[in-house]
């Protein structure tokens, strides 16, 4: 029984060691293969023999907090917010609820972004590189809690009730304003 504290300490150390796993950031994304979007299908209904290929694996983008946060950045920069807002929807359908018109699987969302959808969703084929589409897919899925919590980014600043410190309203610069003063 004397050994118990040591044992507990070792266990804690081992746990801490286990948490040291660092995400690897892939800076040079592999060049996209052929357009895979046509093998992604929305519906399981198919005439004849069931020949739907499996959607391409996208796990590498959903298991890294870095790629999901990149998706969050792109969601803003590529103006997804223009229609879907920060997940709440507006002109486009909300993305943070549990209703998926065209499916919630990564392959479905990928196809939606690449192909466009009726009533306003444009096609981003050739406009966004495939790896960035997968990053967007990962972020969109994180909005409705389909991704584990440890990779999901926090809410964007814009959604806070009070503006965050880093996005305070524009302030007039202190010091020099317009016409410089004559120095005596």
């Amino acid at each position: 029984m004397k050994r118990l504290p040591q044992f507990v300490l070792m266990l804690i150390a081992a746990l801490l060691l286990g948490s040291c796993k660092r995400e690897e950031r892939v800076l040079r994304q592999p060049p996209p293969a052929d357009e895979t979007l046509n093998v992604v299908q929305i519906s399981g209904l198919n005439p004849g023999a069931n020949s739907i290929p499996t959607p391409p694996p996208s796990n590498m983008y959903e298991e890294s907090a870095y790629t999901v946060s990149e998706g969050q950045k792109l969601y803003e920069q590529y103006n997804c917010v223009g229609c879907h807002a920060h997940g709440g929807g507006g002109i486009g359908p909300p993305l943070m609820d549990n209703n998926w018109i065209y499916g919630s699987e990564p392959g479905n969302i990928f196809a939606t972004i690449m192909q466009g959808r009726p009533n306003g969703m444009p096609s981003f084929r050739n406009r966004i590189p495939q790896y960035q589409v997968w990053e967007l897919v990962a972020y969109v899925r994180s909005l409705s809690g389909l991704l584990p919590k440890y990779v999901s980014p926090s809410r964007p600043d814009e959604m806070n009730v009070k503006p965050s410190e880093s996005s305070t309203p524009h302030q007039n610069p202190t010091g020099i304003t317009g016409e410089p003063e004559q120095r005596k």
Partner: protein
Amino acid sequence: MIPEATFHFAGLLAQAVPLAPGSHNILHPGAPQGSHIEWLYWFIFWILLAVYVLMIVGFTRAGAKSRVLSREPLPISEYPEGDRRAKWAVGTAVAITVIILFVVLAISVATGKRVAGMTTSKNPVTISVTGHQWWWEVTYPNPQADQTVTTANEIHVPVGTPVVVLTNSADVIHSFWPPSITGKRDLLPGYSTAFWFQVDQPGVYRGQCAEFCGLQHAHMGFSIVAQSVSDFQAWQQQQLKPAAEPTDQEVARGRAVFLTHTCLMCHTIRGTDAGSRVGPDLTHLASRKMIAAETLPNTTGALAGWIVDPQRIKPGARMTPNPLAPDDLQALVSYLRSLQ
């Protein structure tokens, strides 16, 4: 045997010897503020040099006196009990040190005030500099929206005119530092500040981000092109124009490539459908001397290499690789090279 101190001294001298006259050198200022900073540099340098020489002389004399070199045992104390000369010597040295430090402090504060204070009332040019990972967005704001010039990384200023710089940052803290012109100024996200500088000698001065801001911090340069007032106005008028229309088929095809590929998701070319503000404004790309924040010369080859694989040149940069077909790439580069 050369004492190690000699090397330190040589290092100091090497620092003092002016580097080849360049545009990125606090010892070759091209602006009044830069001259103040250079003066402060030499002031502190000569004080430190004097202190250094005195220290070495003192150490050498003490060493010779106590015969360290002859390997005889050192005396515990040179002075007999009750002799207060040692205390006086130490006290005087401390007092001199404190006085010198205060003088340096006072002169530094005075120089800081001279650098920050506005000494002229001529109408300033106002520019707004926004730091991005890893490039500089530069606008010349004007109440009339269509008179606002937007460019990147290459800041044109008229000679002899104060330039008021409004700073901001889009992501993290950057620092604006043209060493030949003025001191460093941090760009803070979400918080606008202002400072001014003035360039007296025409020329191209290089600047650099001076606050670590991520992977490509080292490749986040900019240049300040100081030119005569008339040249500056001509440049401004040219920048206000929308992008040049394609004149031949190759260039027209290049524009089509630009507008149907990933480029238009991030870049603006005024006069076309591309209007995104994520990356630098490319309306007059060909008028700039360098691309990728002063990393590459603006040549056909460098431009093509940058477009195809920016991640090899600046790993981590926000621009994506663009595997274009060779003839598409050729056309796209011709188009970008035509954007004077």
